[in-house]
């Protein structure tokens, strides 16, 4: 490997780079930029929900004259904001920003590889993601507004510009952006799979991989299985919109005329969409769970409890996730028998999820918890994952879903279980691997403030939200003031909006900490968290090829924390096996030491 002797220019080092570490950072920064847009949008529409007929100069400032009147946003704009908020957060922040960042950064480092299997494809993957972000942001500025049919873009609403203005150019750009995004995701995922299967260093058996890598691996597989289906759904929608086909449309009378579409069905789109849409939840969540497993184990100074059970449950969740999509469609008009089947498969996911939650808790038990910000965010993830996951038992049960379907109960559920949880996983990952990315450390005090304000405001927004859902309040209503039966929910909505604004502003603490630490943070030692995994054996200053000499050989699994001699008759009984509470994966076994 002599790559690092090449003279690198600014362009090859920072822009068209094929170094996985730099590509990971590119994904992170782009994802953070999109995240700022997505979160800011949510704050704008939360203002509208809490104070529907009130003028806000911030609304007037950021929305065009077609989109608001005297500081009050129009109904179409409200729908556009919730649509783009959902799209950006789900795909651009929590798929590309989370999985893209950490898969790229960690896969080669943790398995002991010089780089991804194909650095060039990796670069293409990032630049396609960048292009799709540009197209999505550009769609915000077209005259009739961006896509506004909900992030699920159900036709006919998304197919007919007569039905909603956002279904014109805005929707076209949305579809183009998503098609490019899917290409990026597929190229990235294939690269991750090939790299993990082929480029593991000597001794790095699959059963010695850190759980992060297992999570990225399984995530990539479900991505490859399900994303193409969304691509085909989007293509057929493009055909219906532009070439007059009728895959999703039939018997439509709108704006005073009968349209020519015959024989299609929107339910077909719902099937295709959710065939990706549900696994997508796990594409978002599994990397966060993998990151958390690693961080909790490191900071608890304890092996992760039930390593094999954790791998088993990741696999079980991934498998089940591909056969549960119909639970989004219990009241879509599909055959009730299918509803029964999907109820059964859906609720089964509770079992591996429960195993994971219990395993995390057992890992905390009798640990020696180092309360770094990354650890706090991981604990926060376990908490929100449990809170949000439990209400899945209500929504997954078809009979109960009838009455809470598309209410705020659903919004509360998925924001906690995949939104907040995955964001916490992402923050945990950033705090933990920041030294690996930038060679410096983030400030812990700001991290603590960031964590506590964020978790309190997250619960403050999404916990009461369950109850307004149970009061029957439908989601995606521009205002609830036309229904006196919802008048008693106003105060709760105001409270939630205030919490949302506090939570949103608290992210400024994080941004400040992040960017200041890049330049001013304390220089990182080689292994700041006393961790076992391979990435902490690489030099702090990045080099292309990761290790200056030979790639290290691996002799044990990643979780030998606080390993002691446990033979009662041994004079060393109770002492750490290697004299300290962690053992690098590269350390050979001692005589008489059992491998775990």
């Amino acid at each position, binding site marked *: 490997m002599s790559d690092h002797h090449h003279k690198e220019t600014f362009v090859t080092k920072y822009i068209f780079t094929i170094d996985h570490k730099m590509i990971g950072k590119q994904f992170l920064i782009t994802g953070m930029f999109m995240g700022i847009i997505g979160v800011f949008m949510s704050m704008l529409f939360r203002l509208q929900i809490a104070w529907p007929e009130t003028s806000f100069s911030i609304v007037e400032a950021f929305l065009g004259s077609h989109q608001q009147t005297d500081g009050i946003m129009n109904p179409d704009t409200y729908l556009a904001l919730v649509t783009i908020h959902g799209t950006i957060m789900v795909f651009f922040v929590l798929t590309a920003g989370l999985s893209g960042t950490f898969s790229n950064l960690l896969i080669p480092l943790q398995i002991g590889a010089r780089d991804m299997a194909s650095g060039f494809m990796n670069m293409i993957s990032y630049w396609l993601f960048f292009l799709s972000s540009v197209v999505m942001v550009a769609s915000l500025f077209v005259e009739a507004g961006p896509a506004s049919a909900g992030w699920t873009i159900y036709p006919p609403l998304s197919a007919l510009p007569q039905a909603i203005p956002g279904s014109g150019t805005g929707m076209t750009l949305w579809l183009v952006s998503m098609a490019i995004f899917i290409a990026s995701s597929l190229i990235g995922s294939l690269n991750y799979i090939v790299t993990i299967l082929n480029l593991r260093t000597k001794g790095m058996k699959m059963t010695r991989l850190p759980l992060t890598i297992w999570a990225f691996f399984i995530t990539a597989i479900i991505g490859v299985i399900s994303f193409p289906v969304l691509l085909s759904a989007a293509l057929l929608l493009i055909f219906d919109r532009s070439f007059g086909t009728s895959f999703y449309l039939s018997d439509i009378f709108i704006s005073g005329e009968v349209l020519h579409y015959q024989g299609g069905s929107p339910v077909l789109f719902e099937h295709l969409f959710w065939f990706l849409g549900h696994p997508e939840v796990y594409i978002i969540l599994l990397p966060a769970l993998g990151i958390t497993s690693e961080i909790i184990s490191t900071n608890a100074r304890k092996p992760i*409890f039930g390593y094999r059970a954790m791998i088993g449950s990741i696999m079980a969740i991934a498998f089940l996730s591909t056969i549960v999509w119909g639970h989004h469609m219990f009241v879509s008009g599909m055959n009730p028998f299918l509803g029964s089947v999907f109820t059964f498969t859906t609720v089964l996911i509770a079992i591996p999820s429960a195993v994971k939650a219990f395993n995390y808790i057992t890992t905390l038990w009798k640990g020696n*918890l180092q309360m770094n910000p990354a650890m706090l965010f991981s604990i926060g993830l376990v908490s929100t994952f*449990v809170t949000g996951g439990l209400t899945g038992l209500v929504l997954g049960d078809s009979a109960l879903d009838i009455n809470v379907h598309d209410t705020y109960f659903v919004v509360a559920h998925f924001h906690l279980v995949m939104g907040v949880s995955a964001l916490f996983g992402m923050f945990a990952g950033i705090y933990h691997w920041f030294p690996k990315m930038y060679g410096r450390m983030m400030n812990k005090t700001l991290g603590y403030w960031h964590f506590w304000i964020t978790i309190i405001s997250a619960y403050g927004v999404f916990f009461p939200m369950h109850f307004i859902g149970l009061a029957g309040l439908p989601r995606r209503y521009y205002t609830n003031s036309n229904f006196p039966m919802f008048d008693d929910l106003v105060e*709760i909505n105001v409270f939630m909006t205030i919490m949302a604004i506090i939570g949103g502003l608290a992210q400024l603490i994080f941004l400040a*900490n992040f960017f200041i630490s890049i330049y001013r943070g304390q220089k990182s030692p080689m292994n700041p968290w006393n961790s076992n995994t391979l990435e902490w054996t690489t030099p702090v200053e990045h080099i292309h090829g990761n290790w200056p000499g030979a790639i290290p050989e691996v002799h044990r699994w990643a979780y030998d924390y606080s390993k002691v001699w446990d033979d009662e008759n041994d004079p060393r009984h109770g002492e750490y096996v290697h004299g300290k509470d962690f053992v690098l994966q590269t350390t050979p076994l001692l005589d008489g030491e059992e491998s775990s």
Partner: protein
Amino acid sequence: MLALFYIFIAVALGVSFWQITRVMNLRSVIATDKDNDTQGKLALGFLAFLYAMMIYCLIAMNVIMLPEASSIEGEHDDNLFNITFWLIGIVQFAMQFLIFYFSYKYRGNKNNKALFYADSHKLELIWTVIPAVTIVLLIGYGLVQWNNIMYVGEDENPIVIEVYSQQFRWDARYAGEDNQLGLGNVNFIKGINTMGVDMSDPNSQDDKQVTELYLPKGKKILFKFRSQDVLHSAYMPHFRAQMNCVPGMVTQFAFTPKYTTEEMRQNSEVIAKTNGINKIRKAKGEDPYVFDYLLLCNKICGASHYNMQMKITVVEEADYKKWLSEQKTLAQVIK
């Protein structure tokens, strides 16, 4: 220009932050024993906050929730919901306790040693089997209810009513004497035939088109749903009923109303909720609210999605028959 102003404020905030952090000790990076102690205690404090919030929500928000189900099918739904809710509530309280109490109890200290405890098949078996059994029982009951609700037997002889959706209104069509709805298709929409009913179909003649639903108490109603433009969803929360209206197909849902509107207004839960609402409305100087059943649109359908509703009135069967006989048939309206 205003946008620039806000961006300027954000930049100014950022710069002041930068200046503040210059004097802060950015060198404080890895948790010390003191941090572990503080953060562990904060975790316990957060547990108290979480418990307080959960208990407050459970008690104080009881009054804003939907009243008991007003349909016979919905009763079982409520039952199932209560069982599920108790179950997840207990698990939630227990799990959150374990998470944050352990975070406090085992907060790090350099004199402590973590326990090397990597596996226990017995424990893992326990927490696989217990959730599995609970879940099988729960969905067993759930699926029985689902089948009760979704399959309508021939012998039940329900009253057939069509609910018709368009941007942004609801209409309804009663099947008339023959209890058979005439065929409908968007191609027949013309003039006052707004629901596109095929008037050459003999079954159409005695159908009756209305803008409000009247339902008899104690009779099974089979709703047939159609949409003429985009997806809508007919959501009748008080009856625990919801079904999408899909252009190009007919969907259905059935339930049996249990209480008349008048009876429901005397229900103690409804009275409590109505009083709460009216206190708020009075403070704003608005007319008092009187309880009514409603049908709402619950699938994003365009700009006025938030204002797509239809009133439902449940009456005794005799009143229902009287009301229905006063409505004109389509044959009379559309010549």
